[in-house]
């Protein structure tokens, strides 16, 4: 009898906990959409029309859904890199520079290599080189962090601004295709890009991204290397005392994180654009950082948030053309989401503390 009631007690707490987890996700989303609606109203736009349009375009129309899934590829790769960095306690805020430099390198390299090499080899070479370039771009912040203890938030941001300008310079001056009027690199024909999946416009980079995220998740949770990174992230001083080579691990973290951001750029160029235009900067970096946070560095949760965000982006892009609400509105929504998630988490922790006391 007693065991039965204990079990049902355990069951109810479990159900209550999972219900609470759902509430903790739904409440901030609802609050963010509500405040967002007030903002739309103040500009004289109907929020229900806008939200309805965004969801129907980004999720329920075939072409919109394909675009949404395609958009996930670079976002997931960036997120995978950020999960490694954040779990190791490194703030890599320089994703945009790393992403763009890798994009330029891929866009410049692919058309040249394609003439002399088979498609598969070209793609792999582009992936390898652009990953290496992005990783190299993070070397200086890593060095300054390891050697002088300089906060990487600042140095990665500075390198990001540098990288953005440098990639523009490279497109305009070094790799400019003279046959086009807009400064851009030579265009890769569609049949030489990343293979498409089935009969859709979705390219195989999405699979690469999912595999990368899975590998990162396994690396962080199932390997000794991942555990070492987590120890460094949790307490760098303690890590030194346990004899971990914190310096080397820091370099490795920067390289993996930046390298994956670079791979994202390479996949985006080889999968979607086939060329790099001057001044092209989707600025995914600063947007993915909050998403990874919302997911608490967890792989599966990251996929959920990235998907949600991709729907917003794709739906928002067509809404800006159709309903006259600029794309900037998505930034406001992400910001609201982030603030409300943090707020709900804070209140939740406080209530638990009070309940225990």
């Amino acid at each position, binding site marked *: 009898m007693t065991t039965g009631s204990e079990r049902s007690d355990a069951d109810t707490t479990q159900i209550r906990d999972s219900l609470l987890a759902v509430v903790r996700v739904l409440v901030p989303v609802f609050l963010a959409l509500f405040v967002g609606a007030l903002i739309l109203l103040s*500009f004289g736009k109907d929020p229900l029309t806008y939200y309805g349009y965004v969801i129907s375009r980004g999720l329920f129309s075939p072409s919109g859904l394909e675009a949404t899934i395609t958009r996930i590829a670079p976002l997931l790769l960036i997120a995978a890199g950020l999960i490694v960095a954040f779990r190791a306690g490194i703030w890599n805020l320089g994703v945009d520079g790393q992403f763009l430099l890798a994009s330029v390198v891929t866009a410049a390299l692919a058309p040249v290599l394609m003439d002399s090499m088979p498609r598969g080899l070209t793609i792999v070479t582009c992936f390898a080189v652009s990953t290496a370039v992005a990783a190299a771009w993070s070397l200086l912040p890593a060095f300054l962090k390891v050697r002088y203890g300089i906060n990487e938030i*600042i140095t990665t941001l500075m390198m990001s*601004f540098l990288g953005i300008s440098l990639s523009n310079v490279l497109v305009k001056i070094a790799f400019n295709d003279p046959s086009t009027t807009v400064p851009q690199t030579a265009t890769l024909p569609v049949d030489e890009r990343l293979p498409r999946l089935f009969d859709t416009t979705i390219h195989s980079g999405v699979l690469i991204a999912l595999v990368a995220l899975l590998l990162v998740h396994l690396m962080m949770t199932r390997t000794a290397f991942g555990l070492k990174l987590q120890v460094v992230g949790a307490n760098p001083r303690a890590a030194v005392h346990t004899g971990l080579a914190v310096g080397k691990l820091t370099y490795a973290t920067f390289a993996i994180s930046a390298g994956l951001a670079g791979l994202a750029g390479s996949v985006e160029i080889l999968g979607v654009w086939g060329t790099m235009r001057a001044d092209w900067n989707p600025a995914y970096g600063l947007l993915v950082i909050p998403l990874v946070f919302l997911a608490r560095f967890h792989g599966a949760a990251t996929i959920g948030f990235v998907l949600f965000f991709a729907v917003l982006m794709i739906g928002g892009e067509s809404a800006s053309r159709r309903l006259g609400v600029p794309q900037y509105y998505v930034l406001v929504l992400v910001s609201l989401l982030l603030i409300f998630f943090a707020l709900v988490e804070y209140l939740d922790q406080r209530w638990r503390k009070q309940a225990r006391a």
Partner: protein
Amino acid sequence: MGALLTEAFITSLVFGAITAGVPLLLAGLGEQISEKSGVLNIGIEGMMLMGAYCGFAAAYYSGSFWAGFLFGGLGGAAVAVLMAVFCVRFGMNQIVIGIALTLGVEGLTALLHFFQFSRTYPRLGESGALRIPLLSDIPVLGSALFAHHPLVYLAVAVVFALGWVFRSTFIGFNLEAAGNKPSALDAAGVSVIATRVYAVLSTGFLAGIGGAYMANVGAGLFIPFMTGGAGFIGIVLAMLARGRPLWVLFGALLFGASLALTTALQVAGLNIPTDVVQMLPFAMVMLVLVIFGRHSYLPPALGHPYVRGER
């Protein structure tokens, strides 16, 4: 090289360095106050941008530059209120909230600009420079140094005022203690939370004025995302200045000069791609960090929320 060193080139370089440097100076000074008290204020980029928008809108509708600066400061402070509530009072992650606020302000100001100004792109008129008698008549440097909007001289005065506050007032000591050993400040009966809240609010006010100056005097109009990392440069300035306002001034002028170089080179008839010149200030930051990196200093309690009774 001889052709470069003409009077016009030097005048435009120095004048431009000051115009571009003042927003960096105000942001750097503001960040210095926050960092001293133990708050790493990543949201400063958003505070500047909000200041730029509010400052421009106020100056445009009222026709007064001073109203522009006041509302720019208030706009920056309004963003700082959110930062203070979430990060100082609630102890939430300073970096996440900082990024969230910056993203939100970027989106919001771009939206406001889209619905209000994107059809007309209004500009403000002359800002009304104050030519200081006699000094501004000095050849070459006179009109570059002493013919600015009065706010510029006020900003320089703030440098010395802050130096005095840090050195010899209780406010300065409280700030220092809040960043170095918050528990000691708490034990002395001064609220760490209140000290940090005031610090963050002053940061927002100063950064907001900096943004307003950038929009109203520097550009004469508001452009979405116009601060373009100036707030982040402010953070670097504060980090390298090790708590000394005068160093922020020197740093701001140095970075201002590298920003002003584009225009000055065009005056001299040299056409260097803007992308290359845009890299200069950031390359400068990295160079400075590599050379002087070991001397940069941040307070021990920086970035950690203060919870009484916790270690």
